[in-house]
């Protein structure tokens, strides 16, 4: 028997494979395809203070080796989550991280307080949302704004605090610095890349076009994610959750090699709904066959 467990600071995972926010629903949506309680954790859809309807119009666009989405943070809101979604997570014994999003420090802080009051064990802060008070700059691209945001969340929330960084920046280090100084426990990287899909057709007379401006994810972003995780690892000792284009066990090993401590799988769940379970068993098999008794030993060998 090999030990797949991993500890991100004080947050325990039975294995390093998690379903990424926005691709894993709220609780047991993949229950028909795998035993969700056997995963490291699931990260819920981004939850806001109030319910959100999300974007109108075309929400998806497929690219070479990826997809662009502009779902627009559609979610049931924190109250409905606690009332209607959380009980099933608890009943099924699913390890989870609640992803939170907002458009002001006040939104995020109120959410963090609710999470604290409800003893939510871990939250992941989506900082790729526009800060409406600061003229729609993203929190995640401005080190000072990010620092203030995370400080405020930290004061409100005692549980395990993860900040999900956006790759849409020139330099990641100042943001890592901001997050660490503000007292976050962990970093997840990366969120989606900004992208535009142009849906174009021609009827012989006129062109018809739809622009799908949103977040690019999937296999095509893996090199960007690896590059940023590598940079973040060189800069901080905080635990890192790596994500971006993971679809195979070897992808996971690549992320471990550049310094990730645990992993999230996103877009691939849409193609292969039982992929997370397959990745856990593939990893276990690989470790067994190659005599890596623990995940730490595997990571150590990968980082030599």
């Amino acid at each position, binding site marked *: 028997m090999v030990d797949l467990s991993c500890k991100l600071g004080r947050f325990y995972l039975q294995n390093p494979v998690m379903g990424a926010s*926005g*691709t*894993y*629903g709220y609780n047991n*949506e*993949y229950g*028909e*395809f795998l035993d969700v309680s056997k995963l490291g954790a699931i990260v819920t859809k981004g939850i806001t203070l109030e319910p959100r*309807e*999300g974007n109108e119009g*075309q*929400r*998806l*666009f*497929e*690219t070479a*080796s*990826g*997809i662009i*989405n502009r*779902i627009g943070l*559609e979610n049931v809101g924190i109250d409905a989550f606690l009332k209607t979604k959380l009980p099933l997570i608890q009943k099924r014994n699913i390890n989870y991280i609640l992803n939170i999003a907002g458009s002001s420090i006040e939104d995020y802080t109120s959410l963090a307080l609710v999470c604290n009051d409800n003893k939510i064990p871990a939250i992941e802060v989506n900082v790729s949302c526009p800060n409406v008070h600061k003229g729609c700059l993203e929190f995640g691209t401005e080190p000072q704004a990010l620092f203030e945001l995370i400080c405020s969340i930290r004061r409100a929330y005692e549980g395990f605090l993860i900040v999900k960084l956006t790759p849409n920046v020139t330099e990641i280090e100042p943001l890592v610095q901001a997050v660490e100084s503000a007292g976050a426990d962990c970093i997840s990287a990366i969120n989606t890349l900004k992208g535009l899909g142009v849906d174009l057709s021609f009827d012989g007379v006129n062109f018809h076009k739809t622009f799908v401006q949103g977040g690019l994810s*999937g*296999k095509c972003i893996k090199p960007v994610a690896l590059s940023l995780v590598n940079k973040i690892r060189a800069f901080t000792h905080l635990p890192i959750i790596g994500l971006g284009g993971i679809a195979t066990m070897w992808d996971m090993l690549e992320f471990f090699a550049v310094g990730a401590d645990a992993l999230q799988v996103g*877009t691939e*769940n*849409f*193609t*292969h*709904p*039982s992929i997370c379970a397959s990745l856990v068993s593939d990893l276990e098999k690989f470790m067994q066959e190659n005599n890596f008794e623990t995940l730490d030993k595997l990571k150590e060998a990968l980082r030599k």
Partner: protein
Amino acid sequence: MKKVLKGKVTGREQVTPEVFELRFSSELAEIIPGQFLSILCPPKTLRRPFGVAGFENGILRVLIRVKGEGTKYLASLKEGDEIDFLAPLGNNFSLENKKSLLVGAGIGTAPLLYLNCELKKRGIQTLLISGFKSEGEIVQGCDSVKVGGSILDEVQHYINEFKPEKIYSCGPEIVLKTLSQTGMDQNIDVEVAMEKHMACGIGVCRGCVIDVMRNGVKTKASVCVNGPVFKGSEVVW
């Protein structure tokens, strides 16, 4: 229960210059007209959703129009090749015991062929009409076809002659929208099978939502799990 299934291609037939029929085996005991499946099309990231044109003894029939890389992959499959699909997905047509007019357009005719077959098995009187851009695009199995122009131009004639109690439709949104309005104006139930860009096919990603009225409230419904079949009267067009 939704499952990832593996089947083997048992046949492939060119139906029109652009459309071919793919037949493949499955372990499915049942799939109800209106339900769909989502086929893995490497190297594309997302599976491609298809309505079921026929189902007998576990053999599924789908009509595929070659459009891009994904459908080109499917067109390359030969007898005996493996096919990976997710099924059965979505809800189904209601198959009510009512005289039914089935209105298709182009490749949207596919799920109506299966619906027609199942309604007839139940002894329900049906009429399947469909519109195609040209002679070469006609899909066999319709009771009446319209070539060129719009099938919508023929609908009122068939409503007057056939006097349906129920209309089922699948095709471009403009056809579904117009028929839904016709149904409301003339007090005929209309069910439409919707199509949207889709990622997961199981209601997780919320990529394929449309607006519907439920209990007087406008809400977003996933085409993949709340549909693809909706009452024409509940869709906010």
